[in-house]
């Protein structure tokens, strides 16, 4: 797993025996002593936080699966049984549901951090791409999981999203029926969604392994975006970053607990407490908050097929980002103009999320919501396809410090 020379020395008979046969203790020891840049700030604690999220989701999910019934007649009721009659079910079920929101909240910060500090640039393209794959599988898992309680939004959300595939020319209808296991969202759909929802988290765990491996091999990026040059520039992962990550995890858990214990339903939609009814369409079908930006992009164009293509392109563009950004400078700290475009990009993402929740015709400051979505969608793609390629060629970056150590000793602005 490591990209640094091993300093581990087996001390007793057992560890020596193991080290010659399966050097798993060495692997763990090397992981803990991994030299990390000394200047990592709090934005770099989200890797640890996300690992915790994944583990928490898997554990709560496995227990919930022991009590959940994947059947159109019993799914909604079984979730109620979990919350009313299963010991601590009232805690586990919201922990899993709120946990999904917290997971996405953390992953978005992690991704914005990667964007800001240029963590996708050589030699870390694979770290970034694997991260994008994880995000994609996370989205699938989140969507599948939201179907399981079999509320109105579960059912209609699943109907809308599987309907995307129906928009594919020629084969669309067949693909959609194949995915659903029938002509509409029904028992066959619920069963396969449950099966896949159980499978995908383990796929995520495997890709996370690759993501961390790639990161250790290429070395961690850092806020100034300069590679460590001397031993002075790095610190052992343990105890320095274990201590820092632990503090950040505690803060994160406080926020998590606040939602879990006091506002467990605030991140969901009231309609999902109504059992799914194929004959009654809700007034407004909206996805979970973490999909709202993509929902806004989908609805920004009048053509369904084009909307779907744009929505997928919004994720696909992340995969080619390492080759779109032409700047050799990693950190936005030294890119005064691009930094402003970046801030505008973050704002555009929030605007998309906001308008994803509105109806396209709702007026906001005298302008129809759909036009806000269109402007933000245009900017979203322009940022990746025009601003980053062009700014890298024309921008004069600020002077960068000679080393990480010099930067922390106060020879560079932040």
């Amino acid at each position, binding site marked *: 797993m490591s990209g640094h020379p091993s300093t581990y020395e087996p001390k007793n008979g057992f560890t020596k025996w193991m080290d010659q046969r399966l050097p798993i203790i060495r692997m763990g020891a090397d992981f803990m002593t991994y030299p990390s840049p000394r200047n990592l700030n709090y934005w770099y604690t989200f890797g640890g936080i996300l690992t915790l999220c994944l583990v928490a989701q898997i554990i709560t999910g496995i227990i919930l699966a022991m009590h959940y019934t994947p059947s159109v007649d019993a799914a909604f009721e079984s979730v109620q049984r979990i919350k009313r009659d299963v010991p601590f079910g009232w805690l586990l079920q919201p922990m899993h549901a709120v946990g999904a929101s917290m997971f996405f909240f953390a992953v978005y910060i992690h991704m914005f951090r990667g964007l800001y500090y240029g963590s996708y640039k050589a030699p870390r393209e694979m770290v970034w791409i694997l991260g994008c794959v994880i995000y994609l599988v996370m989205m699938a898992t989140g969507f599948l999981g939201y179907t399981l309680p079999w509320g109105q939004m579960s059912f209609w959300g699943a109907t809308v999203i599987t309907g995307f595939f129906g928009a594919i020319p020629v084969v669309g209808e067949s693909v959609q029926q194949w995915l659903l296991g029938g002509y509409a969202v029904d028992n066959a759909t619920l069963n396969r969604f449950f099966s896949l929802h159980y499978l995908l988290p383990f796929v995520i765990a495997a890709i996370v392994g690759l993501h961390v491996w790639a990161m250790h091999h290429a070395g961690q990026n850092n806020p100034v975006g300069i590679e460590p040059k001397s031993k002075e520039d790095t610190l052992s992962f343990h105890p320095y970053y274990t201590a820092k990550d632990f503090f950040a995890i505690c803060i994160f858990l406080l926020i998590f607990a606040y939602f879990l214990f006091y506002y467990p339903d605030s991140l969901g939609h009231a309609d999902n407490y109504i059992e799914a009814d194929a004959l009654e369409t809700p007034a407004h079908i909206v996805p979970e908050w973490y999909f709202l930006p993509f929902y806004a992009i989908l609805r920004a164009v009048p053509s369904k097929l084009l909307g779907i293509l744009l929505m997928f392109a919004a994720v696909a563009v992340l995969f080619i980002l390492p080759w779109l950004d032409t700047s050799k400078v990693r950190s936005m700290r030294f890119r005064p103009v691009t930094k402003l475009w970046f801030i505008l990009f973050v704002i555009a993402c929030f605007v998309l999320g*906001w308008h994803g929740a509105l109806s396209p015709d709702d007026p906001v400051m005298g302008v129809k919501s759909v036009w806000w979505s269109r402007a933000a969608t245009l900017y979203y793609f322009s940022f990746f396809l025009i601003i980053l390629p062009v700014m890298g060629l024309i921008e004069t970056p600020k002077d960068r410090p000679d080393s990480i150590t010099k930067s922390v000793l106060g020879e560079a602005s932040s």
Partner: protein
Amino acid sequence: MKTSIKTAIIGAFTLIGAAFAGTTIANAAGDSESDYEMKHIHWHFDGFRGTYDRAAMQRGYQVYKEVCASCHQLKFMSFRHLGDKGGPFYDEHFKNPSDNPVVKGLAGDWEVTDIDLDTGEEITRKAIPSDNFPAIYSNKIAAAASNNGKAPPDLSVIVKARSGGADYIYNLLVAYDEEHPTENPVFGGQIAMAAPLYEDAVEYADGTPATVDQMAKDVTEFLAWAADPKMEQRKSLGLAVMIYLLILTILAWFTYKQVWRNVKH
């Protein structure tokens, strides 16, 4: 370093806030427009330490039993739930609510269908605490046919199933006016449910005057509990967890400072 802590924390709260705003908007989008001004009630169960008002829940149960239950089921609830910890008829002497004589008595007021174990024939018998609240109509079509074409919704989670929650249910019940019994401004126009509450529709055992407003508040308190029966447990555990985490966070901060004491970063 200090500034990066600040930015991290501010960033975190901004995102949480945005998530909140997003969902509020998402929920608000489901509301129908009307000029009716929703009254906000200060519920006993609001806030960090909020609990259910037991007397109100007990009165609310009476309103449910004598008024609502002629059309609306509580299908995810059993009679024993009434005697659970935090429930309206909890008695600390009966840890198993099925032994609670009050709960047994309340269950006995209802009839449920069962199968005779000797003949296999369908029979009707008095309910016991382990029985579910019985179905009112034999199926959804029958329910709709007897109620102006719309099946009355189940009330087990109704408070969670409407944006606005308890306030929505309360306002819906009091928003009827006598001239238009089939219209409700909170519902947003025509409603299949005719005004269910009228002055003295029930006679409260504790002598509370049974005004429409009082009954609406009481039954909402009861339904809020029915939708979230573990709220009191959740909030009290939450407080302990938050205090624990706060102490842990402070210790983690000092640990971090101690480990990093000789490193400028």
